[in-house]
């Protein structure tokens, strides 16, 4: 399998004593569904945001398709960000705007300023946005304001926005942590479909091992900013589980 991302010695230090990531090495293959596990504060969000440089790494290198991304600036940096769609726990949509405009905003990286002032004039752009809205099953809500949608629907809008980027990788930061179990599974199914049908590489942090087992093709785990596990989901037994979540943790509580 061809590798798409190579993370070498990635370190992020916030304040002098807050080391969110310590010398993390991960290789991600094209087309993988990589699940990121770890306790709260273990550095999952920081790792994901270093990949599209929403957070600047302190040291270490990231290669995307052999290209070193850690020094890119300006237009080159924006071009790399375009290749990473991102989905967030809090959805991070623009609540006052319609589903359509929110989805179109995923394409901003390819639009000039004036085009982004009048996005609805571009027929081709609008029809592509509508296709992506249809893919997440929200065609009936195209012109609804996002704030009037349920949490699960909002996360699907966020997925459509990410799709609009025509991304090679989707970074999902606890995409289902604020949804109920049934809705969570629906949203995960959409991510699974993008992975299988479009071959989009997915890196997704999760809190539920059951979801990791169901959707992940590989799992990596962080603990206090260090990589403590890398393998297939079924390799996580009692011992490994406790290595990730601590001595006292029991899987029943995490499910």
């Amino acid at each position, binding site marked *: 399998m061809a590798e798409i991302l190579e993370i070498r010695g990635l370190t992020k230090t916030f304040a002098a004593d807050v080391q969110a990531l310590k010398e993390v090495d991960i290789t991600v293959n094209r087309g993988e569904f990589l699940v990121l596990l770890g306790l709260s504060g273990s550095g999952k969000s920081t790792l994901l945001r270093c990949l*599209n440089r*929403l957070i600047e790494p302190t040291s270490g290198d990231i290669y995307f398709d052999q290209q070193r991304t850690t020094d890119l600036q300006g237009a080159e940096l*924006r*071009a*790399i*960000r*375009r290749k*990473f769609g*991102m989905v*967030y726990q*809090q*959805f*991070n*949509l*623009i*609540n*006052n*705007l319609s589903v359509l405009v929110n989805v179109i*905003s*995923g*394409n*901003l*990286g*390819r*639009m000039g*300023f004036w085009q*982004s*002032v009048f996005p609805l004039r571009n027929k081709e752009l609008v029809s592509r946005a509508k296709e992506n809205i249809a893919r997440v099953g929200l065609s009936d809500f195209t012109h609804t304001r996002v704030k009037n949608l349920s949490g699960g629907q909002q996360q699907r809008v*966020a997925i459509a*926005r990410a799709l*609009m*980027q025509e991304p090679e990788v989707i970074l999902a930061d606890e995409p289902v942590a604020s949804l109920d179990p049934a809705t969570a599974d629906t949203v995960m199914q959409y991510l699974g479909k993008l992975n299988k049908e479009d071959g989009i590489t997915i890196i997704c942090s999760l809190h539920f091992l059951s979801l990791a087992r169901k959707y992940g093709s590989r799992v990596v785990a962080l603990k206090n900013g260090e990589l403590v596990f890398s393998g297939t989901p079924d390799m996580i037994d009692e011992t490994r589980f406790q290595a990730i979540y601590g001595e006292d943790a029991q899987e029943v509580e995490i499910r």
Partner: protein
Amino acid sequence: MKRTTSIIIDFILSTYFAGSLIFLINLILVWSTFLIPGLIFAVAATFFMQVFNDSIGLRISENKTLLKRKFFSTISGWFIIILLLSTMVVGWIIVEVNISDFLLGINNTRGIVSGLFSPNLKNLVPMLSALAETIYLALLATILAIPFAFIFSFLAARNLMPKSFLGNLIYILIRTLATFFRSVEAVIWAIIFCVWVGIGPFAGMLALMIHSIAALTKLYSEQIENIDHGPVEAIKGTGATTLQIWLYAVIPQILSPYLAFTIYRWDINVRMATIVGFVGGGGIGLALQQEQQLLRWHNVGLIIWLIAIVIWIMDMISGKIRARLMEM
């Protein structure tokens, strides 16, 4: 460090108290009589209170053991009471409060009161045109202030400016200027502009505009600092440029509060326009000043009614619109 701060506070308060006492004795504060005894008193009082670990300065710097004690069993507690009392007494004397003037002087207001009850309606037309001048100058000042305040507010929002040297410099510069221009009252600006462009509504408009730019910049930029950062991050993550991030993630979040603030500002500007007019800024305020100088109380009465009605209507309209906007 806390100790030093508390000593400085105590010294300032003791000096103030000594000054008050000497003023009460002489009814005039002469530096030569104050300097030696006053400073000796202040130093002694500060030293005394600090030695007993019981002073206002220590209260302010949150000395735990002192704050636990009963208020009236502490020296500092009593000192606070005495300071408040002496301030009241000194204030009473300086302000020349005179109850009998207040009660007996009411007779002198007969002219105004009768003017209020029988306003000179023959003057309604010219006064209405002066009133229109006031409303228009307030409106124009508000509208012309919007684009400036809009742009400045982005540059004066901490969460949007890059944390570089230049970013900080621009932030501090705009914030400081806005604070300065706001703390100079519109009346003062009106006096300046009356000299600059001559007496009339244009001077009043400029005064209100300067003041509005400063006030709106502050309100707007605080609004930007309160936005939800999530969408900003998400739009940035799509590969958008800074301008696109502002357009998509910032502006939709601030638009309706901006409108609400702006309408509120127009409301304030109509009120201020009458005052600004009084010092030469045109409109109904200028008319009020002229009629009052000529003691034409029936015209003054008419003007006061007109101002009250307009402000009442403005208040109602702007309140309604703002309530609508807040729901959005």
